């Protein structure tokens, strides 16, 4: 789906990142992800996938090069701009990270409180997001009353409730059964179809092959392949 006419959402230009303990996480990474794309980030453990994500959300700072995310220049991003950057994205975690004392509705509404949304907006958006992930009837349930797949769908609803321009999903199928994995990616595909850029980190090769999307492969801190159509 990437095209020259499209607008870039994420751009890595000659990015280097080495941790304090000497581990070289990323070396000379160059990459462009356009608005509206669905990209799988694949690679073995320790390849630099997590660092790649951490740099995008500015949990880690780059050593050299430049990263542009949604118009934010990461090399010169000020501390107080970090929350503004993060409000442009939704994050889905492998371990769901739902708050156990809050019900489904409250969990999904949580990011909306952070941006100071009104009660009316919260009701409207949360209902929309829950219906989109097929959990409209479970709004009052607590996380422990849901299956792994359902919990991850709540996580998805929470990620998209603030209408982010992109969703970053870090191994979203890692803790759900294989059938549910496909449902999760189906949902992400539907969200992508409605205009949200999706960046999904995974190591499930079969899943990647079955969905016909762009695949970026990282190994030992380098991008070793960047193919369209689920090829790697």
């Amino acid at each position: 789906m990437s095209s020259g006419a499209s607008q870039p959402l994420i751009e890595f230009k000659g990015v280097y990142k080495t941790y304090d303990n000497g581990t070289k996480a990323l070396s000379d990474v160059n990459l462009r992800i356009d608005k509206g794309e669905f990209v799988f980030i694949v690679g073995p453990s320790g390849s630099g996938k997590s660092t790649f994500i951490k740099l995008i959300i500015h949990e880690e700072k780059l050593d050299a090069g430049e990263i542009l995310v949604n118009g934010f220049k990461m090399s010169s991003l000020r501390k107080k701009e970090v929350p503004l950057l993060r409000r442009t994205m939704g994050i889905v975690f492998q371990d769901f990270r739902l708050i156990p004392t809050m019900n489904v509705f409250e969990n999904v509404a949580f990011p909306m409180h952070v941006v100071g949304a009104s009660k009316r907006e919260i009701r409207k958006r949360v209902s929309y997001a829950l219906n989109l992930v097929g959990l409209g009837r479970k709004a009052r349930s607590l996380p422990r009353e849901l299956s792994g797949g359902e919990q991850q769908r709540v996580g998805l609803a929470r990620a998209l409730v603030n209408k982010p321009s992109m969703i970053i999903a870090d191994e979203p199928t890692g803790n759900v059964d294989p059938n549910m994995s496909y449902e999760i990616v189906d949902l992400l595909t539907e969200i992508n179809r409605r205009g949200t850029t999706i960046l999904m980190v995974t190591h499930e090769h079969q899943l990647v092959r079955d969905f016909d999307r762009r695949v970026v492969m990282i190994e030992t801190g380098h991008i070793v392949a960047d193919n369209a159509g689920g090829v790697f």
Partner: protein
Amino acid sequence: MKARSVRYLIGEGLKNIWLNRMMSIASVGVLMASMLLMGLAIAFSENVDRIMSTIESQNVVMIYLDDDLSDEQVQSVYEQIRSLDNINPDETIYISSSQALEGVLETMGPEYEQYFDAYFGEGNTILPETVRASMIDLEQYDQTISAIENVDGVDSYDSSRDLAVILTTVRSAINTAGIWMIVLLSLISLVIIANTVRITMFNRKLEISIMKAVGATNGFIRFPFMVEGITLGIIASLLTVGVEYLLYKVAIRALEPIISILSFNPVPFSNFMWIILLIFLALGIIAGLIASVITISKYLRREGSEFSAL
């Protein structure tokens, strides 16, 4: 920050207090202990001040004369004392030994007269002739006393100033000890509140990591913890004023006999209640605020990131 966010965060802070109620109770308890000590020191100080002003308003010196003086000599001594500088002649009176006995019997009860008669012989008394003199200016106390001592025929004197000196010493000792105790207890309170906030923080690690991931500012994350600290401080202040009111009432009742001897009216609690409440509120709010801000800021600086936080 929007008003509705503030409302939401205040609600979250209050909810935290309930969710960590055991630690909240411990924090309030320790804060109350330190505030109570401070409040009792203030109550004591207020009452000592009142006793002192009662004493000072009297400015009285009881001057006892030699036993073997004739009536004329007594009269002469009395006149000399009245004419001294800094002695108010209009408020200076002569009390004969028999009048002094009458006074004693008035206090002890007339039935004691027979014992005095049996002991000293009817009509006799060993109580000295006395001049009750009143000073105009207490600042000149020492000079006036030495002038009195220089009058021929004066045996000894007794002044309520001695009691005032003792009370002043006790008050300053209590104030000094009180200040150190308050400093120490304030530090302990700070640590306890900081621990309560820290426990809440670890309980809410997940929420904090999600908050940061969805773009919450540090101020937004910090707010409920500040609400928690401040609320604990306010609860402790209000409870302490209530407890101190009851303790003060009980103490006054228990000390009734001593108070009547000193012939002074204890300062009503309402006279210093507002000062105490204001001091407590300030102490509680500051302790709560400092403890929560330090704890959470330290956490947000060191940890609290999205993927590695849990």
